[in-house]
């Protein structure tokens, strides 16, 4: 018990003192992320409320759709929570100097695991709840549940919900690390991703979630039948279903069902906690010992083998050295490539969904056409923003204190930026373009639309990479080796928000340009829009990089 008290005391006081120092010395840096978080919660709530009210206005189908979306939202959150817990646990359970410190102290590893489980739960859940809380509040609002009522009962369901996801995620990771004694960790994760993708596909296939997109075909009678069928057969064995049922029952004052689901949630979470403890008792210490030796025993991709690759041979020596260094750093940081694979997995799910939906743009009303254009282009844009904020933003910070090597080398700092910029641009533009082109293909969009969206994506890729790279240099965190924590810092949040606003403006502009193009309404307004877009992109592409370089030179000098 004393250990738990100590453990959480340290966290509490470290947090309080950290906040005090921030408020006293860096109040602006503290105020900005707090305001952004608040803005995201309120904005998310308003947007979801608007969506919910829109659906309710569609009559019976809208009500069913609303319930389905609510359930689907929590299901996605549940899967994201498991993934997030796996990734976060790599740091909290294994690759942390604090764990090494405790492992050399006379602390039972089961106690340490249990304490770390709650820490992991907090680290991996708070960001995802920015989606979950507005979702529940908006849903509660249209179901006549006040904020107070939601605030009173949501934690009762939410805490066990988060605990189940944390226990599952951490158990998966312990088993993966244990197995990595016999197989390459990369191969195990790849198998895991394939299994996860398979389960996800089966889930969509059997619960017919993917055919939800049929809704855009406008055949409401089909949807009605489909929804009726769907409402009778939801997938009842996952906690997201219990949580959404709890909220629905609470709204409908169906107390017996409410108590049943809340009981189910709490008992399952207690069982999950116990099972995780049991697995940890057998595996945590030994898997920690396996992980300790991991850096030494792997036969790695060598600098020479990457550098001699013919694909890079055209690069001058300095550029090649920087590119190879970044590739090796990426490949050797599990948090990086695992999350990259996860992104790929979600993109694949989206494209599979599109391929199965059998939507032909030409057959639809103009309203639905526009909606799909927005959605597909927006999806590519927001994917690009998420990828650049997550992977490009930490690039400068990850140079760590080794940056002095670059600064003292006979080359200009701009070369470092240039390499990171073009490498990131090439990778992420290609990815976004693949998503957009495959999406366009399945939607049967015409050449004009495809060309316009390609051009917009090209410009957006330049802008988003510059924004993330530049702001990453403005807010560097050289002491933090974990890229996920770098991204979730104040600068990271500012970058995400700036990227999202930029994408939203570009998506809006593209829709407007396209509408004017379709209607042959070329006017002076169109000229102004294009001028505005050019100016915006001029700023976004050049300014952050220039700013970043200046700040970096100033801070390191």
């Amino acid at each position: 018990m004393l250990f738990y008290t100590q453990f959480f005391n340290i966290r509490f006081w470290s947090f309080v003192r950290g906040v005090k120092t921030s408020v006293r010395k860096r109040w602006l840096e503290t105020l900005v992320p707090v305001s952004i978080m608040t803005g995201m919660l309120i904005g998310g709530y308003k947007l979801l409320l608007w969506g919910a009210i829109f659906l309710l206005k569609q009559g019976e189908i809208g009500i069913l759709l609303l319930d389905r979306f609510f359930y689907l939202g929590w299901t996605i959150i549940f899967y994201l929570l498991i993934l997030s817990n796996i990734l976060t646990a790599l740091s909290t359970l294994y690759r942390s100097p604090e764990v090494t410190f405790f492992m050399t102290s006379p602390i039972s590893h089961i106690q340490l695991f249990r304490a770390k489980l709650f820490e992991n739960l907090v680290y991996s859940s708070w960001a995802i709840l920015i989606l979950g809380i507005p979702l529940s509040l908006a849903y509660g609002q249209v179901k006549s549940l006040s904020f107070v009522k939601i605030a009173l009962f949501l934690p009762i369901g939410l805490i066990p919900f988060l605990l189940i996801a944390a226990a599952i995620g951490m158990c998966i990771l312990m088993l993966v690390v244990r197995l990595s004694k016999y197989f390459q960790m990369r191969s195990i994760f790849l198998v895991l991703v394939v299994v996860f993708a398979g389960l996800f596909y089966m889930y969509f296939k059997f619960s017919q979630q993917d055919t939800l997109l049929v809704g855009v075909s406008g055949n409401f009678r089909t949807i009605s039948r489909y929804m009726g069928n769907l409402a009778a057969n939801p997938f009842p064995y996952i906690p997201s279903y219990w949580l959404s049922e709890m909220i629905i029952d609470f709204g409908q004052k169906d107390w017996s069902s409410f108590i049943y689901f809340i009981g189910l949630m709490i008992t399952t979470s207690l069982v999950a906690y116990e099972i995780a403890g049991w697995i940890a008792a057998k595996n945590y210490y030994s898997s920690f010992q396996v992980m300790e030796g991991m850096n030494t025993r792997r036969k790695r991709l060598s600098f020479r083998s990457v550098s001699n690759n013919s694909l890079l041979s055209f690069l001058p020596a300095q550029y090649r050295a920087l590119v190879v260094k970044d590739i090796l750093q990426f490949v050797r940081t599990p948090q990086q490539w695992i999350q990259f694979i996860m992104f790929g997995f979600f993109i694949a799910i989206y494209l599979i969904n599109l391929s199965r939906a059998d939507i032909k743009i030409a057959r639809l009303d103009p309203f639905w056409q526009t909606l799909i254009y927005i959605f597909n282009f927006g999806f590519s844009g927001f994917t690009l923003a998420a990828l650049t904020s997550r992977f490009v933003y930490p690039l400068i910070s990850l140079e760590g204190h080794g940056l002095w090597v670059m600064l003292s080398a006979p080359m200009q700092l701009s070369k470092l930026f240039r390499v990171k910029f073009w490498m990131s641009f090439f990778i992420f533009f290609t990815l976004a373009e693949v998503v957009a082109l495959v999406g366009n293909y399945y939607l049967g969009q015409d050449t004009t639309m495809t060309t316009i969206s390609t051009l917009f994506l090209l410009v957006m890729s330049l802008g988003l990479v510059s924004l993330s790279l530049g702001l990453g240099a403005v807010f560097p965190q050289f002491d933090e080796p974990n890229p996920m924590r770098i991204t979730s810092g104040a600068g990271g949040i500012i970058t995400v928000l700036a990227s999202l606003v930029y994408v939203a403006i570009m998506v809006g502009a593209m829709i407007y340009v396209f509408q004017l193009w379709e209607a042959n309404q070329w006017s002076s307004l169109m000229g102004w829009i294009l001028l505005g877009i050019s100016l915006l992109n001029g700023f976004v592409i050049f300014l952050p990089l220039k700013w970043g370089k200046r700040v970096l030179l100033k801070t390191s000098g």
Partner: protein
Amino acid sequence: MIQINNVTKRFGPLTAVDALSLSINQGELFSCLGPNGAGKTTTIKMLTGLMAPDEGSITLNGVDIQKEPVAAKRLVGYIPDVPFLYNKLTGEEFLTVVGNLYEMPGTEIQKQIIVYREQLDMEDWFEQQIEGYSRGMKQRVAFAAAMVHEPEILIIDEPMVGLDPRTGRRMKQLMRDKANNGTTIFLSTHNLNVAEELSDRIGIINRGKLLSLGTMAELRQDSNESLEELFIQLVDESAEDTLAKKPV
């Protein structure tokens, strides 16, 4: 007493520690010398329970570190080359945390804090948060943390990093005093002067094998070579042996 029995640790094709057997008596200050990659850190990680040996066993005062890790760790104080400290705690708070982890009574912790605050010359900044400390100050706190529970065994990895000459001297004296009072010390270092000055016995390892073991006089035998010359000679010979054994 530290007993290392035929311990082997492999990382894929690399044998980091190769059938190492060693016995360090109570109250003995043992220095482990070796070039980079010799297997010193792997040995320390196995001694502290951070890694499991593939073969062999390690006992600390008769307690097997693999079979009873918690009981074994209770006997040990460990100072890593890069110590972990909580930046937002003060030096005093950190020592209290460590004392509690070792389940020491509160009064005993306070007593020890006063002792080490004075011995390690930490009075002026002990109530400041650790994030403001210099490297040397952090090293001193790590020393105090490893000794606060009066361990029977001390395992120290590169003790002199970041210390000014005055504090370095003080640390050396402290280690020697501890050994004289019955604490068993396993010291891993590159600093040959420290090893020569402090150690009761010295072991030189390379490529996971113990090349030489004995007191300074035993190592020198009849020659007048310095420890530095002996060290280089032994390591070079071992490298040549390995090359000769490699199939052509």
